Each structure stands twice: as C-alpha cells, then as structure tokens.
C-alpha cells in the first residue's frame, strides 16, 4: 500500500529518521510510537506528501508520491492533522462535505450521494445530531470526531492519523479506535496512526513502528516490537507489561525519588 525507501528526515541539524525502509500492506494497522519530538508527526506529514523527504522517497501503490496527480492521490490517502483552527463559521455538515472535494472534478455543487455519505460518517462518529452546528462552537472532542468523520467521508484505502484519540473521552477513544481496527480488518483499509496510549495502540494495531528520534527505528508486528525492554528503551522510561486475559496493559514504572 505505502512504502518508504531509504527515507531520511531531518529537523534543522538533527536527524530524526535515517534510511527508513518500511512496507505497509493493505489491511494492516500501524501505530507509530516514540517520545515527543522523535519525528512521528514529521514522518506522518511526509507520508501524506505535506513535507518533502530529506532523502529517499515514499511511494503509494508502487508509485512515488511526486508522480501522483494531487486529486488522484486524494482518493488514495486521507490525513488527519494533529490540530485544527477554524477561522470561519462553517457548519459541521459543510466541513464533512468538503472532504468529498476529490470526487467532484469540475462540478460546482455536491450531489445527494455526497450528502448521504457525509451523514453516514457523522453517524458512525455519533455526531449526526450536530450536523447544522457551527464548528467553532463544538467542544474539543466533538470537533475531533467531526474531523475523523470528514476523513472517513474522503473514503480512501489509506488513512494517516495524527493522534486520533486526542481530546476524546474514554468511551470515544475506544469506539473510534475499534472502528479503525474494524475498517482495516473488514474493508482491507490501511491505517497508520500516531498515538501515546500504548494499551490502546496495542489493542487495535497489528504492527508498530518505533522511532528513537536520533535516526534509529524499529518496525514489525506488535508481538515483536511492543515488548517491555524495547518500549522502555524507545520511550526513555521503564515500562511494565501486564497480561490481562487476552489483553496487554502497559504501565510506566514509578521512579522512586
């Protein structure tokens, strides 16, 4: 689905990621894990084509990002930004309909099918009742769910999400994440997400990419990468893993003063 070849990312003088050779296949759900400033968002923005790589290249469906026409690429991958600022009083439904832009070509108005898709995704995010509200009046969590609904309305095989669980309450964190996992499992979609909740990440992801922030990285199945010693090293803090039935719970160890 998406793969990187010798990908390098720099930030100023710092090397964040060096020679990343990474292959993500359809139906996989990846979590990118690392400390603050390790380059998680930078990598995601590079995968989305919002930033040029400092070395190597990214390709989607075997075709380099720069070779894709922008509109066609927009039907392949959707991107959820970490934060958003709303300057204008658009309504929730207009926000979601705007994500149908790549399907419109030169049409001036959207069709009724676009509206049906938008309403469906709003319902799946449990925000259909807010459809006519001004986006600037929503709470942080509601706004985040509207943004995810917009992303789903874009209807792409590849989803790139920067902290999708941001600002969501506990119930919605779980329902959004399991929806993403189900999309990967049942509709063969591919998700790559950045997140900080290891337990949540482990419960929905099939794979994990760990970033050290100095160029080093580790990619693979969660069974191999999400182990206490590896995570402790990459996150710079000792981490304990507790098996709870079929689930694994990750707890940061307390450091006694």
């Amino acid at each position: 689905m998406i793969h990187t070849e010798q990908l390098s990312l720099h930030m100023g003088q710092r090397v964040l990621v060096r020679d990343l050779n990474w292959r993500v296949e359809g139906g996989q759900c990846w979590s990118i894990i690392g400390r603050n400033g390790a380059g998680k968002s930078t990598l995601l923005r590079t995968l989305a084509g919002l930033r040029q790589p400092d070395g190597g290249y990214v390709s989607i469906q075997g075709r380099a990002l720069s070779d894709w026409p922008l509109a066609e690429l927009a039907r392949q991958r959707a991107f959820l930004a970490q934060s958003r600022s709303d300057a204008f009083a658009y309504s929730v439904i207009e926000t979601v309909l705007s994500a149908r832009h790549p399907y419109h070509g030169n049409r001036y108005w959207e069709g009724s099918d676009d509206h049906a898709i938008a309403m469906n995704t709003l319902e799946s995010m449990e925000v259909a009742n807010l459809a006519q509200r001004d986006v600037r009046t929503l709470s942080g969590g509601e706004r985040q769910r509207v943004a995810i609904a917009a992303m789903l309305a874009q209807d792409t095989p590849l989803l790139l999400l920067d902290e999708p669980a941001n600002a969501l309450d506990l119930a919605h964190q779980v329902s959004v994440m399991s929806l993403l996992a189900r999309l990967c499992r049942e509709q063969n979609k591919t998700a790559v997400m950045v997140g900080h909740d290891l337990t949540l990440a482990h419960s929905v992801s099939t794979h994990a990419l760990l970033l050290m922030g100095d160029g080093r990285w580790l990619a693979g199945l969660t069974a191999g990468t999400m182990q206490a010693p590896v995570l402790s090293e990459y996150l710079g803090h000792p981490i304990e893993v507790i098996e709870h039935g079929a689930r694994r719970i990750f707890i940061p160890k307390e450091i006694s003063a």
Partner: protein
Amino acid sequence: MHSFSSNLRRRAILTITVLVLLTVASLLFAGMTGSVSVALSEIPSAVIELLRGQPSSMAATLLNLRLERALTAFVTGASLSLAGVMMQALLRNPLADPYVLGISSGASVGALAALLFMCAAWMVDAAAFAGAVAVSMMLYLLARRDLRSGTAAEGGASLLLLTGVILSAACMAIVTLMLSIAPESRLRSMVFWMIGDLSGAPVRWLPWVVLAGGAAFALRSARSMNVMALHAESAATLGVRVGALRKGLFFVSGLLTASSVTSAGSIGFVGLIVPHACRFAVGPDHRVLIPSAALAGGAYLMLADTLARTVIAPLQLPVGVITALIGAPVFLYQLHRLRG
C-alpha cells in the same frame, strides 16, 4: 434527505436573485436622486433615449451623468468586496481587508506623488496603479516562501501579513511626508484622493474587465477556497494545489484592489464589512458568498455615493467618509453580537 443539495442550490439562486434586484433598485435610486430629482415615470423614456445614444431631454441627461457615476461606484464596490473575500480566504482571517497588505498604501504613494508634481489626471491614475503593483511585487518577493509552499507550518500566513503591515506602515510614512511638504493649493485634492472619492472618476471599461476576470477566477476556485478555509495546509491532502491557489488569490485580489483604488482612491471598509455581513447572512460557503459579496459590495457603494453627493448638497462629500461612518458602527455591532 437527498433534497439537501438541491435545497442549497435553490437557496443560492434565491439569494443571488434578491441581490440582483437590490442592485438594480440601487441603480434606479441613484439615477433618480439628486439636486433635481427624476420621477420614476420619466425613467423608461429616458432610458430609451440613452440606449439610442442621444440624451436630449433633461431627465435623460441627468440620468446619463448619474448612471455613469453609479456604475463606476458599482464596479469599485464589487471589486473591493470581492478582493476582501479573497484576502480573507488567503489569510484565513475574516477580519482581513484588501488594504491590510498595504497595496492601497502603495497606490497612495504613487497618486500623491503625481498630485504633488501636478501631473495630468491620467498620470495620477497610472502612478497609483504603478504604486499598487510595486508594493504587490515587493510583498511577493519578501513573502514568496510563504505563498509558494502551501506546506508551511501553522502560522505560515503571518509572514505575509506582517510583511504587508510593515510595508503599509512604510508607505504611510512617505504619504505623511508628502502631505507635510505639499503646498496648500494641492493639499485638498491629495486628501480627497486618500479618503476615496468618486466625483472625478472617469468611466472606463478596464475595471469591468478586471472585475469580470476576478469574479471568474473566484468562482472557479470557490470550492478549493472552501477546502482551504477549512483545512489550511492539509487542503493539499484533499487534492487542492494550495501553493497555486494562494498565489492566485494574492495576485487577483491585488489586481482588483489596484484597479478600484486607481479609479476611486482608497475607499475604506467596503472590503471588510460587506464580506462580513454577507457571511453573516448567507454563510461562509464561498460558492454563494463570492457572487453575493460582489453584488452587495457594488450596491452598497452605489447607495453610499448617492448619499455622499446629496446629504449636504450642493457640497459633495468624499464617499470614503460615508462608507467609514456607516461601516465602523455596523462592523462593531456585528462583532459584539457574534462574540456576545
């Protein structure tokens, strides 16, 4: 549920129809009002005379003069309002106006320099236009990085905005310098130019061409402008060529501003309050907002100009005074109602 999109279309058509009627009514009102008023019953025959190209009756002659001026007011107001909508989308700030980047200050420097050296009227216009273009070019060179890379980090728009504000301040300093050394006899024309005045504005077809071109560009980009207004830099992931769109908005709104400032001086507030009021009335969707704001801006300036030439007749006020006197309180009211 499927009627939502057709509802939207019906509402858009209704809005535009109402505004077209309002514009025609304003035009008629401007034609009828003045020191000698023309009765509504005289209008049809006078219009027919005008269309034949031989205004002979009193009514037709008056109508001819007033309509020429009203049409100049329309094209100026529509251009300013359209430029305001585009500038607000470009900067993602509903409080930006076409003058915020200093394009009109550049025009002022050019025009006032020409007035100071007693140049002919056409040279004043040419100098104003040259000044506006010069500031746009400088702005483009200084903030090129910001405009080109649609992928700038958050707060990217501020480089453009700050550069514009500084350039504007520099131009205003030059304007003040020229005003302070200008001889008494030329001061009045210089001040009137700065406030914005339609009384001496000649009828020209160029502003109409610019307006038509600007409106065509804006309507074509309306959908992309919506996406960019909502998603900022991430609009690129929805297939919008952000860099190209921002450059287009910058140049077209600059051209519209330069064209209107050249023919009528820097008339304030139209580009700020008309888009704002339209957004309040019809919503922020650019597909409806663009035609609405252009029509409303034109009608607003026609009415303001009619007021400017009648309120203390036979004296004429510069129309910029009227737009600012109406605009400032209306704007404050809107602002407080929204925040309140």
